[in-house]
Structure formats: structure tokens, C-alpha cells
């Protein structure tokens, strides 16, 4: 007789699974992914994540743009991290703020001095100063100075805040650029052929290497930026926050909107798992049911289901999915439902149906009919348990296809709107030209997560297939 008589218990399957190296890898990866999902959902609740990812309220403003993950320093250069100095947060250190009223006037002199060490091998990406000024009539008049480790002091610019909360984008400030270019001229004797970015001029070692941004090196030492301000009004006050943006940030770096990519990587996990598992499991079970009904009852039902299956095979799945996504903005649940609807009469039905038709002829089915078992009973208690095991490995091994489907939709720009999925991140990176600009980490990190997920399920599925399919056992 055929070897279909294998009985599978969960325990025996797991034991067998562990004898296969691929099974062990798959299981380990899967547990890792589940752990990440749980952590993501617990540590970053849904609403919070949506809010963060949309970047409302400038929540990301203190992050550098397009920063690499901090651990690249182990691979090469020691790239700068972000340095923050805040006059309202003295605990950060390096800040001195002195406000002295000028006698017989209602003006005050304020000096805020920021000091920090810079010992990195690369230049900062950006420098911003955030002002928080209190005034009734006139805004304060601020002079901003820069002191290099060598002691040289450069007056960068004069600034008047335009509102009580104001931001000075030092990196693109024309006054500062002019001041620096004059300074450089005096030091080098000429201006570099291509003007250096402001961060480079502020931090570079002052020698011939300053001629181009390719050769310039940062001068390591203690730097100081101080603001001399004149305040108007008895109750006036000024606070400032200096952020010297680094080029590395966090475990995963940032994107061009300064968002921390770890959020996307973390939250992409439950999205991918939910999408993949739900789609795969639902489709597999529905296909199973349909195949069983088709094979067992035969006749007209069979023909109808078979014809519908053939129609599905001719319908172009991806174009239709894209059409639906284009016309309706989808969220995760609706997308899953649509994918399921477009897949249930898929090709898997034909092979399962063949199996059902084989099993239908088995003597013990006849015996069950003889003692009066209803068709429904036979289908659910006899046939389905028989065809379930061979189908499970396919279920697991198909999960990656659905994960990649979601990623593909995202790359085409049709992804789930609010949540950060891995495919979405890749899409955004492409749109921002990440490959041309060398921001490989932006593409590689979500890609790596996709690969991890794919391999986890794939290895697991293949190992299960070897266990469940007796013909494959010794082969």
C-alpha cells in the first residue's frame, strides 16, 4: 500500500524538524522575528508609530539626515555622532549662560557659550541653532562666534530671531559662508576652487588639505560657539540649542526625513508577518476546502470550481491587484482581503483535488459511508486531516511570496499608507536616489530584513516538506 499512513503529532514533527539544519535555522529565525514583532508592538504602540512616522510636529528635527547606523565605525572611519548643547538643559554639559542687565536701561547682555569636544574622523552633516527668545517689543540682536581648538576666533554672523521660536540653519547661512570664506582666504592665501561646505570650513584642519572637500580632514580638539546677545526689555530672555548633526545615528541610521530607521525595521516585522501569514494561511485553507469540495462531490460543483480556477489562472493577478490598489487607497486589512480574494481559486486547487480524488477511493472512506457517515463528516473528519499535512509546508514556504508581494506593491508606490513597511522604506530610498548618493544602508537594511524573513519561512517550509512528504524522506 502507499505510504500515506504517516501519523503526525506536533511533538514528533518538531523532533524531526530539529534533525534538519535548515529546520533549526528556520525555527530560530522565526522565533527571532516573532520576538521583534512583539517588542515592536509593545514598545511602540500603533498610534505612536503612525504619528512618529508621519513626522508630525517636527519630532525628528534633532536627528541628522541620511545618517548611517552608529556601528559603521567598526567598519572604518569614526564618523561623528550628533552633539547637542542646550542652554535650558545644563545637564548636557558644556554650556554656560550668563545674562547681565545693563544698568540704567532695560537692555540686557547675554552670553551663551557652548563647548564641545570633536574627535571624529569625519565632518558633521549639518549645524543648526534653535533659539527660544522671550521679548515684548524688539527681538534680541545676536552675534555668533566660532572658536577653533587652535584658539582662532571667527565672527560668523549677526542674527535677529524672527519669532520667539526660531531656527538658524547655520549650514546654509550666507553671512556665515562669506565670513568663513574670507577667513579661509586669509589663512590659505587663496580660496578653494570649489567653495567648501560650511561644516567643512568650520572644522577642517587648516592646511593645503582644505583645498577640496575630498581631502579635507577635521581638526580634533575642543570647539566653542558663543552667542553674544543684546536683549531688549526687562523680561526678555534668550535660550539657545546648538545641534551639530553627526553622520551616524542609532542602530539603523536615518532617512532623508531624519526618521529613525529602527522604527521602520521594527514595525515592518509584524506587518510582514501579519500579511504573509494571514494571506498564506487563509488562502491555503480556503483552497483546501474548495479542492476538497470539488474533488469529493464531483459532478457539476466540480466542473464549476474547475472552470473558475481556470479563469483565475488567465486573469493577470498582479495587474488586477495594482488596478485595485490604484483606485482605492488600501490599508493593511483590505489589502490582505483583496489578495486573498484574487488568489483563492489558484493553481494549488488542481493538485490538492487530485489528491482528494485519490483518497476518495480508499476503502476506509467506503467503510465510513457504509456505516452512514454524512458527507460533511467524511470530508471534515477523514479527508481533510489526510490532505492537511502535505499542504502545511507549502503554506509556510509561501509566506515569503506574500511578504515580497507587499514589498513589491510598496516599491511601485502602492503600499499601505500610514505604516512603515520594509517595502515602503525601499521605495522611499529609491525615490530619494539612495543608490546614486551612496546611502546603501537605507536600502540594504530593509532588504536584509526581507531576506531574513524569507529565509526563515523558506528553510522551515522545506524542512517540513521533507518530514511530511514521505517520498522525500530518504531522497
Amino acid at each position: 500500500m502507499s505510504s500515506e499512513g504517516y501519523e503526525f503529532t506536533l511533538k514528533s514533527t518538531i523532533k524531526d524538524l530539529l534533525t534538519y539544519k535548515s529546520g533549526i535555522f528556520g525555527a530560530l529565525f522565526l522565533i527571532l522575528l516573532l520576538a521583534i514583532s512583539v517588542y515592536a508592538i509593545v514598545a511602540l504602540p500603533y498610534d505612536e508609530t503612525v504619528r512618529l512616522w508621519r513626522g508630525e510636529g517636527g519630532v525628528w528635527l534633532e536627528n541628522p539626515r541620511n545618517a548611517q547606523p552608529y556601528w559603521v565605525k567598526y567598519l572604518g572611519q569614526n564618523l561623528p555622532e550628533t552633539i547637542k548643547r542646550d542652554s535650558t538643559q545644563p545637564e548636557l554639559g558644556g554650556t554656560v549662560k550668563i545674562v547681565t542687565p545693563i544698568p540704567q536701561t532695560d537692555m540686557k547682555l547675554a552670553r551663551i557659550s557652548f563647548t564641545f569636544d570633536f574627535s571624529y574622523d569625519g565632518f558633521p552633516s549639518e549645524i543648526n541653532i534653535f533659539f527660544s527668545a522671550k521679548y515684548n517689543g524688539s527681538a534680541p540682536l545676536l552675534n555668533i562666534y566660532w572658536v577653533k581648538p587652535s584658539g582662532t576666533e571667527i565672527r560668523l554672523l549677526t542674527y535677529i530671531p524672527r519669532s520667539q521660536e526660531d531656527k538658524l540653519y547655520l549650514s546654509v547661512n550666507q553671512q556665515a559662508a562669506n565670513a568663513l570664506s574670507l577667513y579661509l582666504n586669509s589663512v590659505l592665501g587663496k580660496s578653494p576652487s570649489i567653495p567648501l561646505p560650511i561644516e567643512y570650513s568650520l572644522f577642517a584642519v587648516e592646511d593645503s588639505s582644505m583645498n577640496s572637500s575630498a581631502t579635507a580632514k577635521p581638526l580634533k580638539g575642543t570647539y566653542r560657539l558663543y552667542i553674544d546677545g543684546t536683549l531688549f526689555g526687562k523680561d526678555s530672555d534668550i535660550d539657545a540649542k546648538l545641534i551639530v548633526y553627526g553622520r551616524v545615528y542609532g542602530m539603523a541610521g536615518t532617512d532623508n526625513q531624519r526618521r529613525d530607521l529602527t522604527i521602520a525595521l521594527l514595525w515592518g516585522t509584524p506587518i510582514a508577518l501579519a500579511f504573509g501569514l494571514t494571506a498564506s494561511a487563509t488562502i491555503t485553507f480556503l483552497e483546501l476546502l474548495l479542492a476538497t469540495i470539488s474533488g469529493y462531490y464531483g459532478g457539476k460543483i466540480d466542473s464549476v470550481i474547475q472552470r473558475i480556477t481556470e479563469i483565475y489562472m488567465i486573469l493577470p493577478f498582479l495587474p488586477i491587484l495594482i488596478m485595485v490598489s490604484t483606485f482605492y487607497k488600501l490599508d493593511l486589512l483590505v489589502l490582505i482581503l483583496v489578495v486573498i480574494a484574487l488568489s483563492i481559486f489558484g493553481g494549488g486547487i488542481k493538485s490538492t483535488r487530485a489528491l482528494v480524488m485519490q483518497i476518495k477511493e480508499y476503502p476506509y472512506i467506503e467503510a465510513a459511508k457504509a456505516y452512514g457517515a454524512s458527507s460533511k463528516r467524511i470530508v471534515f473528519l477523514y479527508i481533510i486531516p489526510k490532505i492537511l499535512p502535505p499542504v502545511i509546508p507549502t503554506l509556510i514556504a509561501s509566506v515569503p511570496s506574500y511578504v515580497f508581494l507587499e514589498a513589491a506593491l510598496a516599491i511601485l508606490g502602492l503600499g499601505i499608507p500610514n505604516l512603515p513597511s520594509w517595502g515602503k522604506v525601499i521605495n522611499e530610498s529609491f525615490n530619494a536616489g539612495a543608490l546614486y548618493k551612496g546611502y546603501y544602508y537605507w536600502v540594504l537594511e530593509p532588504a536584509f530584513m526581507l531576506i531574513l524573513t524569507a529565509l526563515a519561512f523558506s528553510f522551515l517550509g522545506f524542512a517540513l516538506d521533507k518530514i511530511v512528504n514521505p517520498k522525500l524522506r530518504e531522497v
Partner: protein
Amino acid sequence: MAAKDLVKFVAKRAITILIVIIIAAYLTILIANMGGYVDEIMKSEIILSVTTRFQNDPAFKNYPQELRDKLINETIMVEFKRIGLDQPFIIRSFIYLKNGLTLDLGRALFLTSDSGSRMVKNIILERVPQTIMLFTTATLINFFLSLFIGLYLSRHHGSFLDKLFIAGAPTSVIPGWFYGIFLIIIFAAYFNVLPYGGYIDVPPPTTQLDYTLSVLKHMILPLASWIISAFFLGAYSNRTFFLIFSTEDYVEAARAKGVPPRQIETKYILRPSLPPIVTSLALGLVNSWSGAMITETVFNWRGLGLLTYAAISATDTPVIIGVTIIYAYLLGATVLLLDIIYGFIDPRIKMGRTS
């Protein structure tokens, strides 16, 4: 007698397939228009754009309001007529169906071919060579590679190479386009030896030889991405497939009889396993012609896939229908052809029994 049965069988199958194609095509038409919903969108877009155009055009500034309104309405009507929105959707859908089935594909609504033609037929035909060139090559390479490696592995079952392919099979779950992204990162972005995508250098080379070489250069990465993706699983599947066939009792009986190994492979393993192999090749080819939309997007390869995507984005229904119908006919014809070929290969079918 067998011939008459065969003809009857083929005719029955052909009719069934045709009905399936008709239903599938009609469904696609319905979906492409979201059952008339897209019509509403298009109508309001046309109204909006025409109205805005007239409001902002300085030439019409001086016209009295009623005259302007009249002009606006006339222009709107003309646009509607051009696109066919003057008739209710249901009627149009059947017209689309009939035209599509007779391959009278008509004119596109918005897209044009590179040569400037609006005829859907030309638009599609222009893209077909690119798609076939790339994906048929990929499918054929994959087919033969996996066949021969699979055969070799089944003969050397248990060897290191065999174990390597078994271990590597799961890597094929990653689709070709994904590998494509990596290949682009490595070879185009980092090493800069191969192009990021596209079909030909810009500006295109002048000599025939250079032109061909340039196309080949652009084909390398997309081909590689498809080959890498299918490589391990293809060989593994074929190997397992052949192994299962070679554990059949009649193979063992043939070995016992002293049939030389070569003959066992051809007569006892390959011949009985031919139908599924031929099927997978045929279906694989047809599938690859639907353009592998994502791969074409990643590599910016101007073939049917990108065309389909562009048509969807522009809701250019005639083009969508055209592509779908052609694909449906191709698939239907392939299935029919396969049925006929089976009749010749598998004697069980030839004799009138169904397998």
C-alpha cells in the same frame, strides 16, 4: 478511431478554453473600470481640467460667461466622445469585449507608442520584442540549467554538490527582482561596471555591432537576477523529481534486467516524466511573457510589464484590455497545445482514457 477521438477531445477543450477566456477578459474589463467607477473619476477630471483651462486662458477672458460656458460644455462633450464616455459603461464594456476578442484592439485613450501611433496594436507590438528577448531567454536558460543540473544531481545523490543544492533551494523564494536590486547596488552603484537599467545606452550607439553589444550589456543584470533566483530551486526540484521517478519499481526492474544506465535514464526516467517537464516549460514561458512587471520596473526595462503598469496608472482601458487579451489567448493556446502534445506522449491519454 483514435484520430476521431482526438479531434473531438481537442474541439471540446478548445471551446472550454475559449469560454474561460471570454469570462476572464470580461472580468478584467470590469475591474479595469471598477464597474464604472473609473468613468466617474475620468469625467470629473475632464470637467475640471477643461473648466480650468478655459478660466485661465487669457484668450477667453473677454468672452461673456454664457459663451464661455457653452464652449466649455462643447469641449467637454468632445472629450467625452473621444474617450467614449458618452455611452453608459455597460454597453461600452461589451463593445470592448467583442473588439478585444476579435483582436480589434482600437486606439489607446492616453498612451502612445514611441513611433507616435495611438493604435493599441502598435503600442503593444512595440514592447513585445523587449519582453520576449529578456524573459524568454531567462526562462530557457533556467529550464535547461535546472534540467541538466537536476539530472546530474539525481545521479550523484548524496554527494556534496547535491547537499549544497538541497541547502540552497530555499534561497529561490526570493524573487528575481529582489536579487536585481542587490545586483544593481553591487555592479551599477558600487563598482559601476554595468548600467542601472534601461534597454540601451543613451545616446544609442550607431553601428549594429555596438548596438547589439549595448543591449546585451543591459540584459546582463536582469538575466542574472532571474537566473540566480531560480537556480537552486530549479535544480533541486528537477533533481527530486528525477529521483522520485527513479525510485519507481519499474526502474528497479529495468536495472535488474541489466538495462544500461543510459537507456534507463532516457526510457525509464525521462520519458515517463516528460509531460510535467514540458508543461512547466510551456507555462513558464507564457508566464514570463506577462512581463514580470516588477522586474521591468526595477530595471526600467521598457517591455510589456512597464506598459501594463503605465496603462493602469493612466487608466487607459483599451491598452489594459489589449495586453490581457493577448496574454489570455497565448495562455489558452499553450494549454491547448499541451493537451494535444500529451495525447502523443502519454499513451494512456492517446487511448482515450483521461490521466
